[in-house]
């Protein structure tokens, strides 16, 4: 399938946040029907296939899913840092950006990120200053041959009009704000001299150094121990409340999602299965996949040595994603001729509660009754 070139228009709107209050409700980031495919010799992998969500100012949105669900590719597509073999096939990502990022009351503009060139000046200005990334592996994220301070100062110097001395001061300040003791000394250490928890804090400091309004945290705590994880989660929550930063929190850990997110997007094989507030997802999940996932996790609150309900089978290989609903071969509510024929659409079934399942779509045969089970 040939890919249509995306028209290279730049700025869609300029707006004054103070003069037009209606813009306050505008999401900071709007992702609409995003599709990112990998074109490889073996075939096409539809890693992200029609994902939509909004990130509102000061909110934490959790993207949860198992391996191959496209959660990391979504993040890379937003930042336009996809691998060469991957292309954004369609969809729009719109960001609300401060024209002058140093000024909190600055005029704002809407920028469509998908139409920018990945290496363009404007994307480079956005990455790090407007949207910052907390990567999964803190060891790999830092260069081992430069001090952490140098790497943070590099970010600051790139985005802010300050001298080297001032940049160092800012770096020390962010180090302090993420709870690193003795920041004046630690700033001159190399990443391999720091422990796992400190390294993760340094990465967070780097991400925060230019006061981004949106943080993308890609599995920020998977590589670290539970007690350190608790420290990092607490830190992120504190910083988020204090700075009113929006966070896209990508993880496979439902416990972390429950603790951190305001809204949750559940993904499976490149598609959004369910989207709702965190309470709705954990108390009134409607999609069979979400329900099954919540039931199958061992919890400390559940009884020991009791068999867990499982989801049969395993996640399909992305090369041969099942036709129709990607979850149908593993689903307990599979309807022959419906689920394996067409892809269900994401429909709103309650207040801000979206599900993509034929059990809830009007086009379904009337015999299929919606799930009633609500507790998980």
């Amino acid at each position, binding site marked *: 399938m040939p890919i249509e070139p995306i028209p290279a228009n730049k700025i869609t709107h300029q707006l004054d946040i103070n003069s037009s209050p209606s813009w306050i409700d505008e999401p900071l980031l709007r992702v609409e029907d995003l599709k990112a495919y990998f074109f490889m010799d073996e075939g096409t992998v539809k890693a992200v296939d029609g994902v939509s969500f909004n990130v509102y100012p000061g909110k934490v949105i959790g993207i949860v899913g*198992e*391996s191959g669900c496209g959660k990391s590719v979504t993040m890379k597509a937003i930042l336009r840092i996809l691998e060469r073999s991957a292309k954004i096939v369609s969809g729009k990502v719109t960001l609300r950006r401060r024209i002058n990022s140093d000024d909190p009351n600055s005029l704002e503009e809407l920028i469509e990120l998908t139409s920018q060139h990945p290496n363009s000046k404007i994307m480079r200005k956005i990455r790090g200053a407007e949207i910052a990334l907390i990567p999964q592996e803190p060891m790999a994220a830092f260069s081992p041959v430069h001090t952490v301070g140098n790497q943070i100062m590099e970010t600051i110097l790139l985005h802010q009009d300050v001298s080297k001395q001032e940049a160092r001061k800012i770096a020390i300040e962010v180090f302090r704000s993420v709870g690193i003791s003795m920041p004046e000394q630690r700033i001159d250490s190399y990443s391999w001299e720091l*422990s*796992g*928890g400190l390294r993760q804090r340094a990465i967070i400091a780097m991400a925060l150094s230019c006061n981004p309004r949106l943080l993308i945290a890609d599995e920020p705590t998977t590589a670290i*121990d*539970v*007690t*350190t*994880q*608790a*420290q990092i*989660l*607490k830190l992120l929550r504190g910083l988020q409340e204090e700075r009113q930063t929006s966070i896209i929190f990508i993880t*496979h*850990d*439902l*416990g*972390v*999602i*429950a*603790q951190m*997110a305001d809204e949750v997007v559940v993904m499976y094989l490149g598609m959004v299965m369910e989207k709702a507030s*965190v*309470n709705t997802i*954990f108390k009134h999940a409607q999609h*069979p996949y979400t*329900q*099954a*996932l*919540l*039931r*199958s*996790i*061992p*919890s*400390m*609150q*559940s*009884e*020991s*040595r*009791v*068999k*867990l*309900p*499982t*989801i*049969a*089978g*395993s*996640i*399909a*290989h992305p090369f*041969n994603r099942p036709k129709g609903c990607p979850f149908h*071969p*593993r*689903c*307990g509510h*599979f309807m022959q001729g419906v689920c394996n024929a067409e892809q269900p659409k994401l429909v709103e079934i309650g207040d801000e509660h979206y599900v993509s399942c034929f059990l809830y779509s009007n086009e379904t045969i009337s015999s299929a009754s919606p799930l009633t089970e609500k507790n998980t």
Partner: protein
Amino acid sequence: MSDAIEPAGVARQPSVKPAVHRQSSSTPLLLEVKGLKKYFPIHKGLMRKVVNQVRAVDDITFFVREGETLGLVGESGCGKTTASRCILRAFPATSGEILFREADGRVTDLAKLDRPGLRRFRPQMQMIFQDPFGSLNPRMTIFDIVGEPMYVNGLKNRTERTDRVAELLKLVGLRPEFMRRYPHAFSGGQRQRIGIARALALNPRMVVADEPVSALDVSVQAQVLNLMLDLQEKLQLTYLFVAHDLSVVKHISDRVCVMYVGKIVEMAATEELFYAPYHPYTAALMMAVPVPDPSKRHIIQDLPGEVASPANPPSGCYFHPRCEYAQEICRTQTPELRELSPDHFVSCHRAEELKLAGIK
């Protein structure tokens, strides 16, 4: 890519087993570890002089009863993997005893045996590995992988071996036809099942599982945990289950042993340990686990500081720099592991006076 054997669908009714702790204190011990130490030397300089030692496992004593699951839990660097490898004699212990009771009641100290002496015990203790991708040789078929232990231990007849491999694959929920395929054709969960089949090939009495589900997706973890529970019941296996994930350990274990910087801090029956812990570290560890319930957000509590280095542990109780209850005695004296109440062991000077909260 192959399909799994189970019918599609979400199992609705879990078979409920009583969650009481099934082995009583009268059940004979299968394994008893006494004063096990494993130090790794740190070499430095031209002469490779030993300058220090990493005390990966530092004088631990515990036991495993026949037919039970003992969960060994702790953060990275606590020595849980080193301890399990020492027990299997994957590497020699620095000192200590590893007493293994055979089916006829004879007790042998594995730590003192040499390679030929160990051969008799190898089939009785098997291992399930963490990484289902790294632990299967990509150039061997499933038949070769599962059949190799049998061949090495004297089952040279190929037909008999084929029958046995087919039987084992069925036991772990895979189709016998799969034995002609190579590991790349299987998903992570299926590979882990193959690893389990291999571990069971010689009818072991004890299986050491080192993080068997941590590399698997959440939806597949439950399948493997259920399989392990099933197999334990069918084959009367004893598990030493090593993991860092407290929820998983709580789910599968009869008793749990918590380690911190090479030492055992607490050991008790699962329910008792989780609902009424004696050691501050156990309590802190449980509080740090994010609860999958958005209405319980407040309870994340963080433990200050970081895990101490086993090369340079603090004085006294290794946990004292992070412990909110630490007193002078904790800084100077190393606490011993003692039985505070029946079958509940703890190494903390102040265990009697502290009233610690378990999970709610």
